[in-house]
């Protein structure tokens, strides 16, 4: 956005050369103490010299507002500019629809800028109207389906304005495009937790849903994490035939580290359960899987799997 070539364009006149700004004394930035002084362009220094001046004078005018437009475009990360701009938006009762369009334009160029998303949220709060917001986040997610700012804004919109309807359908569509989209899996957890909650029926449905995706892509960490997450209140070793499902995948030579890891959790649970008659068999099963993970299937985490083995043996001894 801060293109030094703009200095040469016919459109831009430096503020110091504008007759209508002659009454303002520009304020230089105090760079004397800078260890590494930034090489600002002439246009940048000019715009910010005048911004510092109107800020100090607290000049709440239309011309000050247009100045913040130039300043914001030069450095959209300057939160002082946005702060002052919001004061002017209120004071001069300017069009918030137009402001949202301006905000959208810069977000499209800099979608990971904190100040822009914060500004957008404030505008939507002031307007009390989320129209077009979900669509906007969708458009941004189409460019980057995992943009954290965008998901955060989308979650806020949904909670604030009760826009839960249709979200699961949207998430499902995203997962069909990319089953590895961790943000989409997270959003699913968010929606269900906040709406129906994890009732037995919902849990059953979602475990089956997740297993379908796992079977299509067995080495997908996100789906396995989701599955582990939703069965937190259950026993992995007995819930919903998951153990059988996993053993079947194992017998089909699926070498996914996440599959083996899930089975380690299952055998660990059994081994440490005093009520379980066959727990003596579960311990060696768990240890064998840890060995396989550390030496063949998930070698980068060998030391972790060695740790799990030691911990399993220790916990087993202590549970006797």
């Amino acid at each position: 956005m801060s293109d030094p070539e703009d200095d040469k364009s016919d459109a831009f006149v430096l503020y110091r050369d504008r007759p209508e700004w002659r009454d303002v004394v520009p304020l230089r930035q105090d760079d004397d103490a800078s260890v590494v002084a930034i090489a600002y362009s002439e246009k940048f220094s000019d715009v910010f010299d005048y911004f510092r001046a109107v800020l100090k004078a607290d000049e709440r005018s239309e011309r000050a507002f247009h100045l913040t437009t130039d300043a914001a475009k030069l450095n959209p990360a300057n939160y002082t500019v946005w702060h002052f701009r919001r004061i002017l938006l209120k004071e001069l009762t300017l069009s918030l629809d137009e402001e949202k369009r301006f905000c959208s334009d810069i977000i499209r160029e800099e979608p990971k800028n904190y100040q822009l998303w914060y500004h957008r949220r404030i505008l939507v709060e002031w307007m009390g109207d989320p129209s077009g917001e979900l669509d906007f986040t969708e458009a941004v997610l189409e460019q980057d389906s995992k943009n954290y700012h965008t998901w955060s804004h989308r979650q806020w919109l949904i909670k604030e304005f009760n826009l839960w309807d249709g979200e699961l359908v949207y998430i499902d569509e995203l997962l069909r495009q990319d089953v590895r989209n961790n943000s989409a899996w997270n959003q699913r957890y968010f929606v269900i937790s906040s709406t129906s909650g994890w009732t037995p029926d919902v849990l059953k449905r979602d475990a089956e849903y997740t297993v379908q995706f796992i079977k299509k892509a067995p080495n997908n960490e996100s789906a396995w994490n989701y599955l582990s997450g939703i069965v937190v209140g259950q026993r992995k070793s007995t819930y919903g035939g998951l153990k059988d499902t996993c053993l079947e995948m194992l017998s089909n030579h699926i070498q996914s580290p996440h599959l083996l890891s899930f089975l380690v959790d299952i055998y660990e649970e059994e081994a440490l359960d005093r009520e379980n008659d066959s727990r003596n068999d579960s311990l060696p099963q768990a240890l064998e899987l840890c060995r396989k993970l550390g030496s063949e299937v998930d070698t980068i985490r060998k030391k972790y799997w060695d740790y799990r083995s030691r911990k399993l043996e220790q916990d087993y001894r202590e549970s006797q």
Partner: protein
Amino acid sequence: MESHGGSTFCAVASLALMKRLDGTFSDVKLEGLKRWCVQRQQTGFNGRPNKPVDTCYSFWVGATLKLLGCYDMIEKDFNRGYVLEAQSPMTGGLSKYHDTHPDALHSYLGLSGLSLLGEPGLLPVDPALNISLRAVQHLHELRH
């Protein structure tokens, strides 16, 4: 929101600075946290499942693992190799990935991540404060 290496570091480091790391999490949660962090390693580290690895997570996730007492569980050679690959041979500095523009953030965090590995020539770094131990010592001296 999604679990993220950056926010995970902030949470764990904050607890460590408050001397509340012990006792805040149940054993099950603590083990889950260690596991999640260890899972971030592909070569270097990513910040979320199924995201590409990025130099800065060698610090965010590395430091978290240090604070959790299980930094030695990582594969150090791959981690070191990744960070060194992220250097910009033309201009200097480090980037988030190999062959992209370097910046101050990734340069600093890459170095910090290498320091956690015990890289010779770098000052040891405090994993919770993300400044050198020398700077920490200096801060303590200022207080007295």
